[in-house]
């Protein structure tokens, strides 16, 4: 009995649909709890990207490109770097040294908290965009 390619992967498709939300949630958890446990921007970016890579492997690259189009990825790559450098420029404008987070809020501790939050978010967004772009580059077909 001949099985077409999409029929062969039924079990994988169902299981992937169940697993991807948990991977995305874990990525968000690692991003925002990097201050209190192991984690941070890089790990969270790689986890977030691997959810999309899993989707691309199981459902085909065309479907994943409809979910996350390459134009959006290009914006994400640049937005993260802009966020990081923008935080540095903001600290310069507010009177401190480059990337001196103490001047960002009324209190040095709060300033550090906000500065690290913004910086890690920028790193996470850039790493997600770059890794999914790498996957699209190496997996595209035609």
């Amino acid at each position, binding site marked *: 009995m001949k099985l077409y390619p*999409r029929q062969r992967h039924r079990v994988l498709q169902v299981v992937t649909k169940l697993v991807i939300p948990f991977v995305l949630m874990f990525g968000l958890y690692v991003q925002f709890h990097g201050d209190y446990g192991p984690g941070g921007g890089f790990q969270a970016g790689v986890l977030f990207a691997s959810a999309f890579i899993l989707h691309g492997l199981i459902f085909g690259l065309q479907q994943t490109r409809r979910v996350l189009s390459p134009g959006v990825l290009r914006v994400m790559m640049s937005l993260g*770097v802009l966020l990081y450098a923008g935080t540095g420029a903001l600290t310069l404008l507010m009177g401190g040294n480059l990337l001196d987070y103490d001047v960002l809020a009324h209190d040095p501790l709060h300033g550090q908290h906000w500065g690290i939050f913004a910086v890690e978010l920028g790193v996470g967004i850039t790493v997600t965009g770059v890794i999914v772009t790498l996957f699209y580059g190496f997996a595209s077909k035609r």
Partner: protein
Amino acid sequence: METVVAIVLLTFLAIVAVGIIVLRDLLAAVVLLGLYSLIAAGAFVVMDAVDVAFTEAAVGSGVSTILFLGALSFTKHEQKPRGNDSIIALIFVVITGGLLIYGTLDMPHYGRADSAAQTHPDLAVRFLEVSIDEVGMPNVVTSVLASYRGYDTLGETLVVFAAGVAVLSLLGLKRRRPEEEAPEDAPGDTPTIDPDDVQSQY
């Protein structure tokens, strides 16, 4: 007990590395590289480096394996069969290894708290004591990475961005690859519209 676990994991790493040298099939070598990264991540946990283990497991045995497999799907899977291996390279490698082992005889033993890496230049002690007052977060590695050494992390983000731009300009998003023209969907499925067939400008 921790030392025994570390010794066993290190021995596994050495065996896997020898396996990578000997194998001629590139697909198997890539899978062994993923296994190598995973065992190294386990060894990092035994060394108390939990952030590093997280990153190595995710990046080394996750993303890196995918990239290698993607690159292999464009090229051949096997090395060309060769005659003998070059003996000069083996001699050179053994001599270099012997010199390096001779150099480690003076190094501080594993785990000593008074070695030079721990006490000069007092940075580690300062970070561990002052970080909770100046930065206010329990994870010292994140506070050093993002606050005390924030400029280096900016450079690293730029390197990652540059790699993304480089791969985009080298590979683009559409490659030519030979494939059989078999229909993807079974007769009963709703067919998916291929967005590459529609005129699209990137």
